[in-house]
C-alpha cells in the first residue's frame, strides 16, 4: 500500500490524456467579442449577406445557368416555403432517428468511457477496437443493417448510435483521464470515497471534453442518419434528397440541404451554449 503512492508533484501540466487544450468558448465566431453591439454592425452584416446572395442570384440569371445545375437563391427560398408542409414530416422522422440513436450512443459511450478509464490496463486492451469504431464510417454497415432489420427506423437508429457512441466515448475518455492528483488528494483528505471522487472531481473535470464529444457525436449522428436514409427506406430528409434529385427538382433539393445545414448549426449552437453555461471555467 505504502509503496503505491506517487511522489507528490504539483506541476501545472496535468498528467494523462491528450488534446487537453479544449475550449468550447473559442470554437466559434460567437465567442469573439462581446456580441453585436451597434445597429451599424447589424446593417453591415445584413448588407454583406444581401450582396453575396444577391450576387449569386444575379450571376446565375445573367449567365443563364440552368436550374438543374444550380437554382437561384430566390427559387430555393420559394421551394422551402412552398414545399415545407411536405418536407416537415420527413424532418420529424430524421429527428426521431437522430435523437434516439444519439441518446443510446451517448449513454453507452459515456458509461464505457467512465468505466474503462478506471482500469488503465483494460483501456490498453480495448483502445485499438475503439479506434476502429471511431474511424470506420458506420454508414458502411447500413446495407447490412437494412438486410437484417428492414427499411424502418431500426437500422437507422442503430447506425446513428454506432456513429455517435464511439465519438462520445473517445472524447469523454480523454476527459476522464485528466487526473489532477492535487484535487483528488484534496477530496481524499476529507475522506472522500471513490464514488465521491468520481462525481465531484473527475466528472466535472471531464465535462468540457464530454461536451466536445457530445457535439461531434451529434453531428456525426446527423450525417449517418441522412446517409442511411439515402440508402433505403421511403422516408426521412435523406430520402427526400435522393427523391428530389432523381426528379431534378433542384430548388426543393437545395431547400432540404438548407434544412440540414440549419440542423447542424442548431446542434453546434446548443452545445456551445451548454458549454458556455457549464464549462466556461476552463479558459
Amino acid at each position, binding site marked *: *500500500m*505504502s*509503496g*503505491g*503512492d*506517487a*511522489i*507528490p508533484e*504539483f506541476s501545472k501540466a496535468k498528467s494523462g490524456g491528450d488534446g487537453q487544450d479544449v475550449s468550447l468558448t473559442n470554437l466559434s465566431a460567437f465567442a469573439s467579442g462581446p456580441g453585436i453591439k451597434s445597429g451599424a454592425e447589424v446593417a453591415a452584416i445584413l448588407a454583406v449577406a444581401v450582396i453575396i446572395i444577391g450576387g449569386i442570384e444575379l450571376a446565375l440569371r445573367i449567365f443563364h445557368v440552368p436550374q438543374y445545375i444550380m437554382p437561384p437563391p430566390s427559387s430555393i427560398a420559394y421551394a422551402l416555403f412552398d414545399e415545407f408542409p411536405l418536407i416537415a414530416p420527413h424532418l420529424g422522422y430524421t429527428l426521431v432517428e437522430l435523437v434516439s440513436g444519439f441518446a443510446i450512443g451517448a449513454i453507452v459511450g459515456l458509461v464505457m468511457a467512465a468505466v474503462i478509464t478506471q482500469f488503465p490496463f483494460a483501456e490498453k486492451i480495448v483502445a485499438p477496437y475503439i479506434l476502429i469504431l471511431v474511424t470506420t464510417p458506420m454508414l458502411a454497415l447500413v446495407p447490412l443493417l437494412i438486410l437484417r432489420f428492414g427499411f424502418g427506423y431500426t437500422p437507422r437508429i442503430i447506425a446513428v448510435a454506432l456513429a455517435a457512441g464511439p465519438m462520445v466515448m473517445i472524447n469523454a475518455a480523454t476527459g476522464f483521464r485528466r487526473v489532477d492528483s*492535487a*484535487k483528488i*488528494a*484534496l*477530496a*481524499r*483528505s*476529507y*475522506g*472522500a470515497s471513490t464514488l*465521491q471522487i468520481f462525481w*465531484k*472531481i473527475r466528472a*466535472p*473535470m471531464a*465535462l468540457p471534453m464530454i461536451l466536445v464529444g457530445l457535439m461531434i457525436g451529434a453531428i456525426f449522428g446527423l450525417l449517418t442518419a441522412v446517409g442511411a436514409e439515402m440508402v433505403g427506406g421511403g422516408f426521412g430528409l435523406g430520402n427526400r434528397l435522393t427523391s428530389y434529385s432523381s426528379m431534378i427538382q433542384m430548388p426543393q433539393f437545395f431547400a432540404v440541404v438548407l434544412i440540414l445545414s440549419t440542423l447542424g448549426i442548431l446542434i453546434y449552437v446548443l452545445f456551445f451554449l451548454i458549454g458556455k453555461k457549464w*464549462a466556461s*471555467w*476552463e*479558459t
Partner: protein
Amino acid sequence: MSTASTTTPKLGVQAATKVYQTASGDLLALDRCSLDVRPNEIVSIVGPSGCGKTTLLWSMSGLHRLTAGAILLDGKEITGPRPEIGIVFQEANLLPWRNLDANINFPFEIKGEKPDRAWIAHLLNRVGLDGFGGKFPRELSGGMQQRAAIVRALALKPSVLLMDEPFGALDSFTREEMNRLVEEIWLDTKTTIVFITHSIEEAIFLSDRVVVLTTRPGRVAKVYDVPFPRPRSLEIMATKEVFDLTNKIKMDIVGERVRPIAPERPSAEIVRIRP
C-alpha cells in the same frame, strides 16, 4: 522548552521512513525522520529541494502511508486522512468549476455535514473575502485564492493545520501579507501549524521552531528555536538576531547542497557501472 517536551506532542513523528517505487527503482525520500510538534506551536520545515518536506507533510496528513515508522496525532497513529487535520496545498488547489462558497462547502459536502455558516462567515471576514462568495477562482488573484483555500482548510475547525509551501507562487509583497494573516489567524485560534517553505525569512517570521531537513533521504538536521515575541513586527524582523539566525539556517541548507558531490547511491552500484 524542557517542560513542554514532557507533554504529549500534538504530532509525533517517530522514525518516519518512506520509500517511493519509481520506474527507475526505489527512492528513499524519508529516512528515520523523527520530530515532535507541540500543541499550539507553529513549526516550519525547511530544507533543500527534494528533501522530502512535502512527503513528510503528506504522511502527516494521512494521504500517504509510511513505509516504516509512525506519525501520531494526540498519541494515536495516523493511518488515513483525519478530520482534525486541515491541509493548505501548494497553489490554492481550488476547484475551478465551483465558486468560492461552493469551494468552501466542499469539505462539508464530502462529509455529508451542514456547513457552519457563522464560522465560515467569520473566517471569510477574517481573511478579507467578504462578498466574494459568488466569484470563481479564475476571477481572483493568487493571494485571494490562497485566502479562500485557508478558509476551506479551517472551515472544519481542525486542531492541526498542515501548510505545504502555500505561498510559494505569490509575489513577495502578497507573501508577507499572507504571512501576517497566518500569524493573526494563529493568534486567534492557536491552531497547531506545520508549515513547509523554501523561504527562511517566512519560516522565521511565522515559527516557534524551524526544522531543517537534510538532502534526500530527508532526516532532521537541526531544530532552531525562534524566541521572538508576537505579533512580529518589521522592526523585529530587521534585528541582528533574526539576520544571524537566517544566515545560520542558510549555511545549514547550503552545506547540505554541497554534500551531494559524494555519491547519493550506494557506491557498490557505481563500481558496477564503471568496472
